[in-house]
């Protein structure tokens, strides 16, 4: 795992000691600061007082459950992005979590790479500038208004879905985007396909934007997902 480009302050609200320690340690290893709260009340108090970039909240907590904690935070005008972790992975549970004020929902068990990618996207969303109309990575340009994509001087023709895939990747340029995130955000499906269906779409996109160019922009991050960025950094 590469070191984070920007340090985040995270609060992990999770009652299982071992999972919490594992998460905190893993976040620290990639260069973030992670605090831990063991129950809902403590978590709420810490989330209100501390300046956190993202809260990682377990759905089922002692003293105050995750959804009620988020509701209380939102009622007080606290807009810190929240990622909900839950053993309840079904569609309706996810909808419930998002409705309660959560920003993202990750069913257990999850891989740390998936969690990290999502947390980074959430923190960026908060601090980032307003939605731009023109994305640029290296010499690749995507105009969201005119739906024009160009690499250097070459105009590229993309299918509508390829355009949306590239748009999502470029919006999160420099960040790891997982397959599940793509499936959820580009296709709006929340199930887990048994096959490598996303990889095929990526390889098609790659053949359009990277083929024949010296510097590849669309990278596969092993064990995690994909990232678009200017090769030299």
């Amino acid at each position, binding site marked *: 795992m590469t070191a984070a480009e920007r340090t985040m302050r995270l609060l992990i609200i999770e009652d299982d000691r071992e999972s919490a320690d594992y998460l905190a340690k893993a976040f620290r290893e990639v260069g973030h600061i992670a605090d831990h709260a063991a129950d809902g009340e403590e978590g709420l108090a810490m989330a209100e007082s501390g300046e956190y970039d993202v809260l990682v909240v377990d759905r089922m907590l002692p003293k105050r459950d995750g959804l009620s904690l988020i509701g209380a935070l939102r009622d007080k005008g606290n807009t810190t992005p929240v990622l909900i972790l839950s053993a309840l992975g*079904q569609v309706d549970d996810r909808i419930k979590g998002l409705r309660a004020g959560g920003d993202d929902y990750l069913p257990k*068990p999850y*891989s740390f790479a998936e969690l990290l990618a999502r947390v980074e996207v959430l923190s960026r969303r908060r601090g980032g500038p307003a939605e731009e109309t023109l994305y640029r990575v290296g010499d690749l340009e995507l105009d969201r208004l005119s739906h024009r994509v160009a690499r250097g001087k070459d105009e590229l023709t993309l299918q509508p879905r390829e355009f949306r895939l590239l748009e999502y990747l470029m919006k999160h340029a420099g960040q790891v985007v997982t397959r599940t995130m793509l499936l959820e955000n580009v296709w709006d*499906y929340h199930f*887990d396909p048994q*096959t490598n269906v996303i990889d095929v779409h990526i390889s098609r996109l790659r053949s359009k934007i990277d083929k024949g160019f010296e510097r590849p922009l669309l990278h596969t991050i092993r064990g995690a997902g994909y990232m678009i960025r200017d090769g030299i950094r």
Partner: protein
Amino acid sequence: MTAFGKLVRTTAFRLTLVYLLLFAMFAASLLAYFAWNTRRLITEEITQTVNAETSEINEIYDRGGMVRLVRTIEYRALRPGANLYLVTTPTGQAIAGNVGSLAPGVMATRGWSETAYRRIEDSDDRDHRALVRVTELENGFRLLIGRDLAERRRLFGIVAKAAQFSVLIVVVLGLGGGIFVARRVLRRIDAMTGTAQRIMTGDLSERLPVGRSGDEIDRLAENLNAMLERIEALMAGLKEVSDNIAHDLKTPLTRLRNRAEEALAKSGCEADYRAALERTIEESDGLIRTFNALLMIARAESGQARGNMDDFDAAEVAEGIHELYEPLAEDDGMTLKVKCEPTPVHANRELISQALANLVENAIKYGKPAGTVVSMDARQITIEARRDGDQVLLSVTDRGPGIPEADRKHVIERFVRLEASRTLPGSGLGLSLASAVATLHGGELRLGDAHPGLVATLVLPARAGAGDRVAPPIPDVPQKVA
């Protein structure tokens, strides 16, 4: 509770009591009406007779004076079954007639009255009753003409007796019938309760006794039996699932454990450890997927997912899945086509998408035709959304080897994988999920022969009344093709 107490507490018995009361009241009021009318009729008849005779005798008096009157009275009084006659002086002394004694004051009041009396010739001491009319003659003499009421009383007595008797019969028959019906019902209910208790102690195969009369108790028993059938099927399903989970989850878990053990035992280099760990993660990911699929099936089967239903066009789902899988199919040397018409449904979009995705994945994995040289046409998979009456059909057709008819039912069951597919990756849950999703929506998963190939169809009920609202295509404007 005593047997009698139990009997009294039955609904049948209580209803009988209510009916009994109603019938008794009905009989009583009928008889009362009859009695009252009879009495009125007899009174009327007496009144008429007495009136006629009074005016007749008055006429005689007018024509022949007191002497003629007395003579006529004496004569008439001697006739058998005669009326009552009495003529008195202004001082109240009887001068003619057959009345021995009267209730005091009767002669003093003119007009009609009912009175006790005795005839002169009566030997017994009994009082009789009569309806009499007293009129005054010119000179203060009074004339009484009346008629005995024994006839009226006798008739009234008959009616009263009939009333008593009929009420008694109604009560006896009603009570007897009530007890009989209640006991019959009670016996059947007791039999059902007994069976239900036996079922609760564990024997789910037992069924309630159903009679041949087809009455409400039989219908209840039939419905309860149908419920038991369903419970038994669910329990069997649950048992099968737990057995399968035990088998199909333990196998990869064992594999996982063995690999970890092997990696520990062998003193390998870091690369070996890394490879072993990577395979461990891969294996556990597979396990998680299987687990998720199982949960989802359980959820669909239990009907919990019914909450998230929307109105939408199933053709959109077909097109979405086509768009998602088209590149994958092409990479595999297949072509994925889609054919759509408006197919309105009320369903859980997420689940329908997943079910259709499973069918498409199966077609891509197993739908390749045998042999090496095959035409492009034989490598085609078609997704179709079609409306058939009040049903919406979402089908996936491939040109592969298909599934033998005998295996089709079997293959929908959880974890079932046909010999031919065992070497390919997969959990054996895809069709189970698709079937559970169809069932959840009140439809079914149909597997058929595409000659050659397999056609898997999700049959869903179309949204009621939506067919008319789909706007026809406007001919002047070119339709956009996705």
